[in-house]
């Protein structure tokens, strides 16, 4: 037996994305944001997208390109504080935004990746974030139902990969990437380095390759990946 090779040209992989798709995108700030896959999605032009991403990056960076190109109808997120463009789009009604508590967004995505219907949580009870949510009483205590999130496509940034799609992340570029890599029907990963099979130690794999559909190796990194000088 040998493990299949998942390497594919970036535009071929992105071509699977359709108008109206839900797309999860890794990253928390710059670290872990798949900048190159995002640009390919801008080039591809799919519209009416629902994005699921922790934050909206900063103006002129990351998913801001997709917001500015008008490809995004809806954003499920936790915090837009560093992107005034995103806030303006939201306030003008051009972008529907659903805010989640950060750890609950992480859990909902993880639940989608774990084949679970929902989690029962007490986060936000007594605040407007719980308004309108289904509640369940269990063992005398009230919980809100937080349904699992899945996507049609997930765009993932990894530090290293092997040709089967096993992924490893570095530092705080891990964040939402390993969760989203389990929770989409089609998982597309960009990796800074793609190593031969066996070069990524089995104990050090963060995302097993069985979750990954397409893999592309990045060439020289664009400036968007660099340290931000504010």
């Amino acid at each position, binding site marked *: 037996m040998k*493990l299949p090779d998942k390497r594919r040209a970036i535009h071929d992989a992105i071509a699977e994305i359709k108008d109206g798709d839900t797309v999860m995108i890794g990253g928390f700030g710059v670290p872990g944001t798949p900048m190159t896959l995002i640009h390919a999605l801008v080039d591809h032009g799919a519209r009416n997208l629902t994005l699921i991403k922790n934050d909206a990056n900063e103006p002129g960076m990351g998913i801001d390109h997709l917001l500015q190109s008008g490809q995004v109808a809806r954003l499920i997120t936790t915090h837009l504080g560093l992107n005034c463009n995103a806030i303006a789009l939201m306030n003008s009604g051009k972008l529907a935004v659903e805010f989640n508590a950060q750890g609950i967004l992480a859990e909902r995505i993880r639940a989608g990746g774990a084949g679970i219907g929902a989690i029962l949580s007490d986060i936000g009870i007594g605040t407007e974030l719980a308004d309108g949510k289904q509640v369940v009483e269990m063992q005398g205590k009230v919980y809100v139902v937080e349904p699992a999130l899945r996507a049609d496509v997930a765009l993932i940034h990894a530090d290293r990969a092997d040709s089967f799609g096993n992924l490893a992340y570095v530092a705080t570029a891990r964040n939402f990437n390993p969760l989203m890599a389990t929770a989409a029907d089609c998982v597309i990963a960009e990796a800074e380095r793609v190593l031969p099979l066996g070069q990524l130690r089995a104990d050090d794999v963060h995302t097993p390759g069985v979750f990954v559909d397409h893999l592309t190796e990045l060439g020289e990194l664009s400036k968007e990946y660099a340290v931000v000088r504010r």
Partner: protein
Amino acid sequence: MSDVRDRMVARAAREIAPGMVVNLGIGLPTKVVNHLPADFPVCLHTENGLTGIGPTLPPEKADRNLIDAGGAYVSTIPGSAFFDSATSFAIVRSGRLDLTMLGAFEVSAAGDLANWRIPGKFSPGVGGGIELAQKARRVVVLTTHTDRAGNAKLKQECSLPLTARACVSRIFTDMAVIDITAVGFVLVEIAEGVSAADVVAATDAPLVVPDMPLPTF
């Protein structure tokens, strides 16, 4: 293993398509791996936290920390990955397992599977069986056609506690390959030296026998 069982396992191995992620249950299904070509592109999964299972090892070559879910000492191949038990079943439940091959006590004409408990006799717990049966994209069964007492394992309804309902697509036995369809059991292949009438007689439910020559294995 008798010749016909060996042919049955070899036939089941052809069920695995290139690129699949596959979980092989304890017992007969485990032996399917011996019938895959050396460079066949497939990823084997085991519930205790490994994708990319390599050959089984004898005790003197075994790694004390590396077993499969059945307790056999296995090895890795280039590209193997280890993960925890939650991730292992996330793979199963979220649809990343293309195929599982399981053993059975009973299979019903509707594809219900009973393979974990015989009340009063055998109740060791379900392990990962329910999730494999309920969530793998395709579930096939490898089993002898009848039990040791000669009783049919393919029945109109299961009498034992179920593992999962309507989950089985195909059954490989030492007599035949049988599909579960909207009209129940359908004979699709037959073991050499066995007649369709033999299979019908050993099956405790209606069996559709197509009016055409059937492939043999």
